[in-house]
């Protein structure tokens, strides 16, 4: 389970971004998580929320967007990699369906902080409804 260290890094990054922005807090954050990683989305959300409690980011709403893999091969093939047969769940194969060589994932290996939402302090009163 390495979601904890990933969660800590995500929150470090969110805090840094909020600071750059001169914002006091983070109201929401979105993480893009590739499915060709071993980071489990539910565990990651749990870890982010838990760590956030200890970091005055407790109010941040966490959303995790999964990113389906894409791969490219030297032979020119590009696309959604096929799944292995016989594995639990869909595990993308890094083998080219055209020529059989090893491909490179161009998407699906990421775990990135995609966006944060911060309180609208600089703009004055935030509208409430």
């Amino acid at each position: 389970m390495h979601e904890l260290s990933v969660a800590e890094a995500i929150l470090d990054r969110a805090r840094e971004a909020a600071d750059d922005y001169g914002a006091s807090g983070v109201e929401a954050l979105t993480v893009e998580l590739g499915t060709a990683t071993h980071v489990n989305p539910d565990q990651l959300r749990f870890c982010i929320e838990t760590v956030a409690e200890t970091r005055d980011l407790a109010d941040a709403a966490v959303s995790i967007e999964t990113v389906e893999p894409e791969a490219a091969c030297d032979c020119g093939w590009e696309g959604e990699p096929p799944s292995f047969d016989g594995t639990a769940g869909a595990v993308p194969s890094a083998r080219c369906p055209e020529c059989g060589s090893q491909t490179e994932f161009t998407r699906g290996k990421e775990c990135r902080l995609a966006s944060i939402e911060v309180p609208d302090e600089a703009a004055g009163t935030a509208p409430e409804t």
Partner: protein
Amino acid sequence: MTRYLSHRRQHRPLIDRLLDALVGDPLVARTHRFGHGDDGHDTDGDADDVLAQFREQARDLHERVVHDHGVFAVEFLGATGGGKTTLVERLLERAPDEERIGVVVGDVAGDDDASRFRSHGVAVANVTTGKECHLDPGLLEDAIDEFDLGSLDRLYVENVGNMVCPADFPLGAQARVLVVSTTEGDDVVRKHPLLFEACDAAVVNKVDIADAVGADVATMREDVAEVAPDMPVFETNARADEGVDALADFLAEVRTSGHHHAHAHHD
């Protein structure tokens, strides 16, 4: 250098903001959408991608250990009880007297493996990872600071016994050797395809008891060939020192050629 998109409402007139409020546009005021890597092909170096940051760190470590100090670095990973420690001991026994070797051992707790290595007269750094299930480049960097890198010829890194997490955390070694054993079942490759893809060589250990535990080594080989077509597979019985020569020869070859380039890395 900042990569954030600028605040889309920052310089807009008040009326626009009021309209936004009326039509219910963002109640939560400001949204930062961080920029993607431009081509999507090289997202490493993307400060917002924490896994890419670890990969970047691994590359820096590789640069320092392998290129600046000329140390040949090999990582061993695989489940607890699969025989990583025994296998590395067999390799240590093969080392010429003049070769200076450092071993880094990652363990969730304790230093049993570290003491085993110390008895071979090599420099050993034990990393007790505690809550972590894998070594990351930062932990490895701290560990090798215990060595005088300039005087080392070879570095063996034994990762924490775990078949999942290390796949996301390369350590910058020239070869990642995945050690599985027949006792884990002959479906072990299918259960962990991404880890096989992330490695350079596979060792199937404890082949002597394959029949007894009902594991078909040929099936394991076929699965490896499907997951990672170019990956060499070594069958060993590390305890009895059988099959280890072929692995040692492979490592010697990687060392001579500098890197293992038999297949592309996805990190």
